[in-house]
């Protein structure tokens, strides 16, 4: 059957918001190819999530909420996706390029000897049946024009925030098909022992606004308490928590950091933006005390609006910024936070 299949990634029985971007991209592809759009929803709460997929443009959904699939496990999910691909021979399989999406589609593509393009920022179906796509490579320093050839199922994982979800339509009709799992519990070698949810999840990939700090965070005028092992580290950590975080909070954004700040121990690695961290493309990126090394630029240069706050007027970050503010970030950032509170009525 010719169709476009989109895996809707869920966590605790709810769809990831970026999954709807994948479904939106899948809808555009299905419409262009003139084939139906099918959502694949596995695990806890699958039928509820599938109904939302219907409102978001899926014509049908394949669901399986068997106990073996309650929580994502590659082994169980990949076996089932591979079975679906072998039986239904979809034209394309799409998902968001998260940790799970990337490994699941790659596993199934390998199982079925299919072509896959990972972490793409745009794509287009060609008249010869192939799909061409743009992949940012070298952490976004250059672009690659890649293609998956016609014939066989084409697997694509999509970069978060690069595609638009469909406008929801509650009147959409949806045909739901229950499918059986491919493996029984005793055939699955992987057992999840525990899951510790992060106290504060750092999801830079999804954030519409990011406030980032760099090496300059150690210029905090506050005195480090007597006995701190390293005054600069204390000052920078205090700055991330009490100067940048409040700005991020008032904007509903996330806190990022440069590699220099992470390497110096100012903030955990999960916050790192750049080539060995996360590549992000928010609507607004505010760089505070970041000089703008090439490997940091690579990770954030596709941000829509970049604001640079730095005491060094010659910092390279100003060359790529839309707005530049030269001065002490510890004076400017609190002033911006206060101004925003006033203007946004918070």
């Amino acid at each position, binding site marked *: 059957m010719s169709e476009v299949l989109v895996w809707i990634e869920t966590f605790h029985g709810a769809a990831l918001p970026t999954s709807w971007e994948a479904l939106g991209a899948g809808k555009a592809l299905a419409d262009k190819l003139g084939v139906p759009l099918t959502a694949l929803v596995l695990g806890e709460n699958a039928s509820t999530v599938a109904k939302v997929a219907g409102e978001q443009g899926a014509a049908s959904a394949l669901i399986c909420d068997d106990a073996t699939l309650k929580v994502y496990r590659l082994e169980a999910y990949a076996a089932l996706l591979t079975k679906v691909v072998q039986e239904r021979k979809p034209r394309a399989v799409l998902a968001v390029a998260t*940790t799970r999406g990337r490994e699941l589609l*790659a596993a199934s593509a390998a199982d079925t000897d299919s072509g896959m393009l990972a972490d793409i920022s745009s794509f287009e179906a060609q008249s010869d049946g192939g799909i061409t796509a743009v992949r940012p490579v070298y952490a976004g320093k250059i672009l690659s024009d890649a293609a998956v050839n016609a014939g066989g199922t084409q697997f694509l994982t999509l970069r978060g925030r690069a595609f638009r979800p469909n406008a929801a339509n509650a009147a959409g009709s949806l045909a739901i098909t229950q499918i059986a799992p491919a493996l029984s519990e005793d055939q699955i070698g992987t057992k999840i022992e525990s899951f510790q949810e992060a106290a504060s999840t750092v999801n830079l990939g999804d954030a519409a606004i990011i406030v980032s700090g760099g090496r300059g965070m150690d210029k905090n005028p506050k005195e480090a308490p007597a006995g701190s092992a390293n005054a600069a580290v204390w000052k920078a950590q205090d700055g991330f928590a009490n100067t940048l975080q409040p700005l991020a909070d008032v904007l509903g954004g996330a806190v990022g950091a440069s590699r220099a700040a992470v390497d110096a121990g100012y903030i955990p690695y999960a916050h790192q933006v750049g080539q060995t961290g996360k590549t992000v493309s928010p609507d607004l990126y505010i760089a505070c005390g970041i000089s703008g090394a090439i490997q940091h630029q690579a990770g954030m*240069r596709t941000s829509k609006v970049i604001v640079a706050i730095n005491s060094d007027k010659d910092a390279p970050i100003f060359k790529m910024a839309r*707005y530049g503010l030269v001065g002490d970030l510890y004076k*400017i950032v609190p002033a911006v936070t206060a101004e925003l509170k006033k203007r946004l009525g918070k």
Partner: protein
Amino acid sequence: MHCVVFTRATPDTAAKVEVGANGAVTWGDAALVVNPWDEYALEEAIVQTQNGGKTTVIALGGEMHLDALKHSLAMGINDAMRIDDPALDPTDSLAYARTAAAAVKKLGDVTLVLFGKESVDVGTDQHIYGTARKLGWAMLSAVSKIIALDEVAGTIQVERLLEQGKEVVTAKLPAVVSVTKEINEPRYPSFIGIRKASKAVIPVLSLADLGISAAASPTRIDAYRNLPVRDSQVEMINGTPEEQAAILVDRLLGEKVL
């Protein structure tokens, strides 16, 4: 225990990467280094075999990967091998996975295959998952800690760092594991290690040596391009911090990004 690490060379992450007039990717005179993510995998292989066992590092592709293999040996990996064949395109993930799996099978006694999280240059990790599937082994990605590895029981327990938190999972050995930065602190090669590695002769195997032949690739790369020039006419906002803040917020409200 025999532990295999796959590695490759990548341009230094500080390099300015561009596409030249002839369409080729260039990185000036920046050095080629071991893919930074792989250093964690190499370190973990050494740690996991310190009470007995053997480590082998493998690269797929041309001579550009030689220094990455030598760096691995200098860190303390026992053996190195390179797989190179005119019919092998290691940038094709499916070809990579088939070849890597064949190499592991040829070694025969491997319990654990380690990879760094991804290739920092082309940002690819699908060859890792493909290798696990072609081997038919368990795949554990984003591993931040190997909690226990019991060869007798044939199990491995790891901590994985996912978007929403930490997962502890037990799987059957043999397994393919890809590791994150949190797993360890990679060592620097010792002087003696560097000297020994510089003298090492690294065997090169062909696809025929592995008993496989090349298959047609379902994907291709048509071209590399430089990024469109960022239209960034920077507007410098001056004044007291309060004045700067007021103007900035005006501008941001005008941009409709809030």
